[in-house]
């Protein structure tokens, strides 16, 4: 059975690290999915929603719903953006009788990519080798809004050669918080500084997570402090693309 899925790329992956989107397509195709990238998509509207700008958030949500609703499932390489569509779109249209059912329908079939591969497809990577020690950070929205915890670990476990070093405070926020990190940079820096120290203390070669925003925050801090830890979105390794450049490395 072929699953027709739409990839919602997310604005951050589109602009900052396209290979996460390609890794998602590669893994989904390996799992037997037929992947489409709807052209009407831009951003899910989370920056507006979290800034209190309900009108612009609703406008972008409508555009996203229109772009995604024709498909059987919507898969997103970000727990935070998937969480916005799944948990917050129905809240945005709580009092809008015309849009609420459409928002709920899209919400009900939206998945974070690793959760989709693991829970829906029952797929696991085969023949992928990465000789490295990795540590994993649980990004907050995926963890607390979507319950993403075991799924990436189950997938990563099937990569040959990959070992794991537990991260002290793996469920503690990295201090990214979207616009928070530029509105309150000093507080954000104090938080990510501790996170970077904890990552370094694991002795891992690789930092893995499921959200590019958090990864950019942590990788950017690790680089500024001169750490040698390399950061990837977990889907890159899962899709067999762990041999490419890490975040901040030239291709």
């Amino acid at each position, binding site marked *: 059975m072929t699953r027709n899925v739409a990839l919602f790329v997310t*604005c951050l992956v589109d602009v*900052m690290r396209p*290979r996460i989107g390609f890794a998602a397509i590669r893994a989904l195709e390996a799992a037997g999915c037929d992947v489409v990238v709807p052209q009407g998509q831009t951003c899910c509207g989370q920056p507006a929603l*979290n800034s*209190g700008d309900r009108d612009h958030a609703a406008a972008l949500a409508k555009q996203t719903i229109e772009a995604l609703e024709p498909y059987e499932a919507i898969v997103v390489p970000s727990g935070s953006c998937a969480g916005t569509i799944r948990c917050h779109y129905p809240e945005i249209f709580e009092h809008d009788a015309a849009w609420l059912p459409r928002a709920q329908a899209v919400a009900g079939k939206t998945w974070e990519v690793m959760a989709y591969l693991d829970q829906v497809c029952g797929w696991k990577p085969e023949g992928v080798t990465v000789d490295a020690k990795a540590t994993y950070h649980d990004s907050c929205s995926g963890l607390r809004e979507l319950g993403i915890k075991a799924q990436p670990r189950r997938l990563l476990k099937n990569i040959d050669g990959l070992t794991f070093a537990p991260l002290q405070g793996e469920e503690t926020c990295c201090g990214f918080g979207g616009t928070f990190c*530029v*509105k*309150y940079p000093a507080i954000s820096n104090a*938080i990510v500084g501790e996170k970077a120290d904890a990552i370094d203390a694991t002795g891992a070669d690789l930092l893995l997570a499921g959200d590019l925003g958090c990864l950019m925050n942590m990788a950017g801090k690790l680089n500024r402090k001169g750490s040698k830890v390399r950061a990837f979105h977990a889907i890159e390794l899962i899709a067999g693309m762990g041999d490419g450049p890490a975040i*901040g490395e030239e291709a």
Partner: protein
Amino acid sequence: MSSFTAKADTATFKERTDAALADRILKVAVERTAGTAETKRGIAVAAFPDFDAARDRAAAIKDHVVAHLGHYLEMFEANAVAAGAKVHWASTADEACKIVIDLCKAANAKSVARSKSMLGEEIGLPHALAEAGIGRVETDLAEHIIQLADERPSHIIWPAMHKTREQVSALFKAKHRSPHEEETIAAMAESARRQLRGEMLGADVGISGANFLIAYTGAICTVTNEGNAELSLVPPRVHIVTAGIEKIVPSMPHAVHMLRMLARSATGAALTQYTTFYTGPKRPGDRDGPEEMHIVLVDNGRTKMREEGLAEMLRCIRCGACMNHCVVFRQIGGHAYGGTYPGPMGSVLTPVFDGLPQSRDLAHACTLNGKCQEVCPVRIPLPTLLKGWREKSWREGLEPTSMRVGLGVWAWVASRPALYRFGTGIAVRAMRLLGRKGWIDRLPLAGGWTQYRDMPRPAAQTFMAQYNKERRK
């Protein structure tokens, strides 16, 4: 006057947080206490059979009483009066203070012994007592430290959390009549006991808050770990209670359920050392107890909260778990928040008391990571309530113009996919010009980012450009 104001409140949120972040001793102090609390709570919750079901029940109890506040408050009043107490109603902080001051004056009180109460802080009672020339002795050890240092509490459970024991030792040596000589916690506690015991027993009036008001019995409940409430409320002639109207629970079994949640969430203990229910003043034949008991029920914005979308916040039992687990609180401590209540619950409450224009930063200075909601014993959706304040701030035009314009332009472009593709293509090329060896160390318009961390240099083309080019082949 809405809250007890100190000098620090005149600074901006940014000034306060910068000062807090620069204070390494503060960081040590906050981390010691909050870190211990986090660990102990985790152990206590894991050992409790089905804590999640207990949280559901706690939330349901609070939602029920908040929906039927009038019913239970009237029942409480009738039963408290039947037990011999007098019940007073205050709709504002000023009214509440005036009632307490008038009662103190009627009792001809020269000094009052006060048992730690956050509601007292909220209504500005320490300040009101000082203005009325009534002496005040804080009997909770941490509140005693705060009083000696002339500061404000920085945490709702551990008011002196921001101080290390080394700082407290120096303070006691400077201020106590016969301070400790040995540098041990036991010797320091003994020094405080020598200082406080006489003042406590000599007070004319004892003032407390209430952790719970029991509607069926008219009792009020206090919890402490030092026994100071009992010692400061039983000997004086008059006991005055100030309590928020949301503290009501129907019956003793409900109170006991909430106590289980409160102690575990706050300190990881199964119960506090002292849990006392006070039902009316001394009765004929009783060997001790106050001659008069007055209960001041304070609204101070609470019914308005219920009407204006903050009903869930009235579930709060003031355990402090949200702040103990908050990454922001752990960095800046409690004073930087600038209100009576710090941390996530304080960020929801402070705009109610101090106004949104004065406190709009609080709702934004949050990463929305959801940890506070995860640990809340009454399941308050704190991130949702904080986002509610962000929306109100946006609607009322309190957000900075740069933010409004920036977000507006971005949203306008993002609503036009073709234009958006064009714009992101240019943005990627521009960003690449600024980078070297994969990283950008200075990025215009994102100085907050690059001040502290590097920005990865984007790929040569956006995902959409690459994907569509591949497909055309």
